[in-house]
Structures are given as structure tokens and as C-alpha cells.
């Protein structure tokens, strides 16, 4: 260990200063936590409302299976041929997207 003859003066913090700093720190952390939880809560609220809407639509539908969906069957009959044929493959099939780039995440 290196020898030295001088060092920096120690800084002492009084109880009042310590409590003040603690209060400011707690306030900053509390506000951050409040904002974050509020954002997450709102986000969950919208997801729940959307899900409720979808369930409501399903509940009101007479036919609830996609393979018995008349509009879908008409689409195949009049336009797209049959499932997994060329036209629906081109129109509906999704492609792999490399999202390694951070910009692609948002």
C-alpha cells in the first residue's frame, strides 16, 4: 500500500442534511415508480378493454368458428381458390423480419 502524508478532509453529514437528502431521494423514486405503474396500469386497462370487446363480438356472433365463417368461405370460393394455394399464400403468408436492429423493435 502506498505511503502518503496527507489526505482529503472527511465530509460529515448532519442528521438534518441526511434526512433532507433521503427525502429528496425517496420523492424521486416514488414519483418514478408512480409514473411507471400508472403507465403499466393504463396499458393493461387498454389490453383488457380490447380483449373484452373481442369476447363481446364473439359472444354476439352466431357462427364462432373461422372454418365455418361464411365471409371466409365466400372469399375462397369466389377469389382465392383453396387454403394454402398460391393466391392465399402470397397474400396472407408473413415473412421473417430480422429485428436484431434495435430500431426495428419500436
Amino acid at each position, binding site marked *: 500500500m*502506498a505511503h502518503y502524508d496527507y489526505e482529503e478532509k472527511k465530509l460529515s453529514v448532519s442528521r438534518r442534511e441526511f434526512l433532507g437528502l433521503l427525502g429528496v431521494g425517496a420523492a424521486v423514486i416514488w414519483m418514478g415508480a408512480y409514473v411507471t405503474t400508472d403507465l403499466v396500469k393504463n396499458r393493461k386497462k387498454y389490453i383488457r378493454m380490447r380483449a373484452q370487446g373481442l369476447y363481446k363480438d364473439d359472444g354476439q356472433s352466431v357462427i364462432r368458428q373461422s372454418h365455418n365463417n361464411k365471409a371466409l368461405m365466400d372469399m375462397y370460393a369466389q377469389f382465392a381458390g383453396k387454403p394454402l394455394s398460391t393466391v392465399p399464400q402470397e397474400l396472407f403468408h408473413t415473412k421473417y423480419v430480422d429485428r*436484431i436492429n434495435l430500431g426495428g423493435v419500436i
Partner: protein
Amino acid sequence: MARDSTEKRILKHPLASRIFHWCLIMGFLPAAISGFILWLKVGGDGIRHVALEIHMMGATVFTVSVIGYMILRFTRVLAYVHRIFSWNKNDLGWFKVLGGYPQKILFGKNVEVPPMGKINSGQKILSIVLFFGGPILIITGWILYAYIPVLPKIFIFWVDVVHLILGVLCGLFIIGHIFLGVYNWSDFKVMFGDGVIDFAEANEHTPVWVKNEVEPVNHQPLSNLKVVEK
């Protein structure tokens, strides 16, 4: 008035501060370099994938070291905060000659620089940027790492923008800091070595610090010092 002694030595950077600086080298620096690679889209997918991994590992080291230092050396952080927000006319004088660095580096000419404390005015600016930028970078970084699926997209967008701007700003400041750190090689060795500096050298470069903030170890009387008028 300045104290004069050529034999004496001062502990300028205690062990905790030196370890913290080493942690910044191992944490912030890799995170900053990999961050620039990700931002500028250097190389292919493979390189960027590795850069992202390094970015997250560096960020972890950076986060742990900042939180650890703040908890374990709280009073030093307070002293540091006090130091970086203490400004006087000497700082204005320092900025007028930019610490004498351009004259010294470009023309080999020494100009008179106002007496400085432990950190000079340029370091104060850097420290203020890092004092606010560092924690915000940590918080926004972890939000981008863990909370993208659960937070609103517009919020994540602005978190990303803030992370990028502060990352570039802090990164550029750090480049300047490293350049001048290496330029002041003896001080560089003090920070990354044993932390001890010669009294005379400290008194020459940081007279205000030596005069106001330094005391003998174990509070020995100052009578053994030779006091000279400057």
C-alpha cells in the same frame, strides 16, 4: 498562501474511487463503444448482435458500480456534487483560455491558468453531464431492455430518443476526457495506480484543493510544514 513540500505525498484518489473508475472502464466504455456500433449500424447482423450483448453486459457492470459507489461512498458522492456545482470567477478565467490545453497541445505554449480545485472547470462540465446523464442512461437502458412489451409505444419511443441523445453526448464527453486523461499522464497514473500524488505536483495543478481540502493524515499539526507566500 500555499504550502510547499517536495517530499510529501497526498492520497488524491482513495481505493473506492479508483475501483469505481476501473469499473467505469470495464462497464461504461464497452457500453459506449457498442452503443455507437448499434447507433451507426456498423458491420453486419453478427457484429451488431455481439455489440448488443456487450452493450448489455457493460451496462450491468456500469449500473452495479454506480449504485454500489453511491451507497458505499455516499459522503464522497456528496463532496463530488458540491464540487461540481461550485463555480466562481476562476472558472470563467479557465474557459477563456480553455485550461491552456489548445495553446499547449497545438502551439507548445504555456499560458497562465487560474488556480483550480480538485477538478477543473472542464471536468466540472463533464461531471455535470455525467451526473445527470449516467443515471438517466441507466434507467432508460433498463426500460428498453425489460419493459418494451408492457409500456406504451410512444413512451418507449421517447425513452429510446433520450437514451440515444444522452448516450451520444456522454460518449463524446468521455472521448475528450480520455484524451486529456492520457495527455495528463501523471494524473492518469494516479487514478489508475496507487492514488497518491506528490504534494508539489498537486500544489502546482490543484492549489485550491490542496489549500482548502487537504489535511495531514491523523490530523497531525501543520507545524512541520514550510509555509510560503505566493
